[in-house]
């Protein structure tokens, strides 16, 4: 089949696509199946199973990767400040939810800290997002006048500064300085991060498909033309940055809940690079790509590629190179491979959709589908 034929067939299939009602029912069904499946696994598998770690952390990283993709992939702003926003979110959540009775133990060097109340979890999660968004707003004021590389360096610098400030001794009564925060409410069920991250990603999708999302994409494609179309560059970039930071903040709070403790030292730039790696592997500009890549990345780093960090023997022979840290070498090779040969990542800028699957099946079973599609024309 020539390229042209394919294009014509695709065009023909377009009007014959699924009607929205069927589409939404299938989507709802798939979603219910996913959540049901997780629930079922929780009932049958032991709670310590590695699969839950992968699912929980994968869901959280999905949200953070999508929030970074909103900036890098959809607005064309190359930001490396995500770890900083996560840190702000994680700390805001932790600080405001530690129950008063546990504060004395957590803030043992600071007389139990200066906050003596605890907010409910949903409020604290939103507050975590707002705090990250507020910091993003402040940084955006000077930084968004910069372009590409300079913006990346400035946001990276911000992330490092915020990490240093939180560890500042004088802020101890609030942030517990370089000591870790713990005892805040966490989740047990894998469903919690799935639902929260799912809702957040749904909101990001809605934003991207709205008039503002189109404006972001216009800025990505051509700043000068976007400005000539009446789009205020600074205002729109600021919006994208604040929204991205808001969801990264919520992601950071979820990560804190997952780890059951939070320490500023863990939120290094290496964390941002991990997320950037996910976005690049998944495809810059593809939400579903980021989600798929998140789960793949977490599964590899936590599960499938774990053996690379341990000394292994095959038939009495020690396998060379395998030792602690070798996993990271393999990851570096993977990213080089992706950047050199597979530049668009798993999904490119395409999205995984029910319509897409439908079209795919019609293409695969071409002969039959062709006849079926004919009456519609």
């Amino acid at each position, binding site marked *: 089949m020539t390229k042209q034929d394919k294009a014509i067939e695709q065009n023909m299939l377009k009007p014959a696509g699924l009607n929205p009602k069927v589409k939404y029912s299938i989507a709802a069904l798939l979603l219910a199946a996913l959540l049901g499946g997780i629930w079922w696994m929780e009932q049958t598998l032991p709670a310590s199973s590695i699969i839950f770690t992968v699912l929980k952390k994968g869901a959280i990283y999905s949200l953070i990767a999508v929030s970074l993709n909103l900036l890098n992939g959809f607005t064309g702003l190359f930001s490396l400040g995500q770890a900083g926003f996560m840190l702000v979110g994680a700390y805001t959540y932790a600080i405001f939810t530690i129950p008063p009775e546990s504060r004395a133990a957590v803030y043992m060097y600071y007389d139990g800290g200066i906050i003596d109340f605890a907010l409910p979890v949903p409020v604290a999660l939103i507050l975590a997002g707002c705090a990250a968004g507020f910091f993003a707003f402040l940084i955006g004021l000077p930084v968004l006048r910069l372009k590409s590389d300079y913006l990346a360096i400035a946001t990276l610098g911000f992330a490092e500064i915020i990490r240093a400030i939180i560890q500042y001794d004088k802020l101890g009564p609030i942030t517990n300085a370089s000591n870790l925060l713990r005892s805040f409410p966490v989740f047990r069920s894998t469903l919690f991060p799935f639902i929260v991250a799912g809702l957040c990603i749904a909101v990001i999708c809605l934003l991207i498909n709205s008039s*503002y999302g189109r404006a972001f*994409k*216009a800025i990505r494609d*051509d700043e*000068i033309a976007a400005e*000539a179309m009446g789009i205020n560059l600074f205002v729109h970039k600021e919006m994208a940055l604040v929204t991205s930071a808001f969801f990264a903040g919520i992601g950071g709070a979820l990560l804190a809940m997952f780890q059951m403790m939070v320490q500023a030292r863990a939120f290094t730039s290496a964390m941002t690079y991990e997320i950037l790696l996910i976005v690049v592997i998944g495809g810059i500009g593809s939400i579903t790509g980021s989600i798929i890549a998140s789960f793949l990345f977490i599964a590899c780093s936590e599960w499938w590629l774990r053996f690379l960090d341990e000394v292994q023997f095959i038939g009495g022979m020690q396998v060379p190179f395998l030792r602690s840290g070798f996993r990271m070498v393999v990851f570096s090779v993977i990213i080089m491979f992706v950047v050199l040969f597979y530049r668009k990542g798993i999904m490119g800028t395409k999205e995984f959709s029910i319509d897409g699957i439908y079209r795919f099946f019609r293409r695969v079973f071409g002969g039959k589908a062709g006849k079926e599609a004919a009456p519609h024309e």
Partner: protein
Amino acid sequence: MSESNSVLHVENITMQFGGVVAVNNLSLDVNKGEIVALIGPNGAGKTTAFNVITGVYEPTNGRVDFCGETMVQNYPKGKMAKEYKGENLGLYKNAIVKSPDKITKLGIARTFQNIRLFSELTVFENVLIAKHMRARQNIFSATFRLNHKEEQRMRREAMELLEIQNMGHLKDDIAGSLPYGIQRRLEIARALATDPKLLLLDEPAAGMNPQETQDLTDFILEIKNHYNLSVFMIEHHMDLVMQISDRIYVLDFGSLIAQGLPEEVSNNPKVIEAYLGVTDDAED
């Protein structure tokens, strides 16, 4: 020529980059319903003049009025105050700066010499983006679809525009994959979608063959009448310029060397010299 009739009034514009004066003391007017052309050899400063009018550059000195309202005004400041080589120093005392998006909102739309479409988006989205700035919405109402009536209106208007331009069948095509001539027309359509009073066209016929140029000529006249526009354009194709311009300004080395009706300008010895290079001819 009454004041209320003037759409664009450019007064003593000088644009100096470092020591180079790109546009020197340029004054011109575009009146309601006129098609005015700006011509001149390569490097004469035509596109720079466009960029000053649309706010991409801040002029070093001078003023631009749009529909009787001062839109841009500037005078040499700081280091430029010492280096300034132009005229009319001290005529303008305060600076008014508007960014390109505000100027577009006032009603000036433009196209670019080297096409600048949103090449990864569809034809429909390209036009729809132009509707964004005038929509009554904010980021929350847009995200949570509280503005669906506004969104519907935007989509309907964008679609209507595409249908009028005979591009309705292309609506789902990726803009960057279209043939060159269509991309040019899409860029004009996109500019029209911002509801302009004045349309600035930067070399709309660049790279077109005679037939395409003729089509474009008809197209410009058609949209001018249909949308009640004034058109100000830079163009090299003399047949196009002579055919549709009401008046012509000629720029050479940043300065205005001639202006007037097409036939006046085409017979002006200065213009012929600038275009054909009389000294070269004398040597032959």
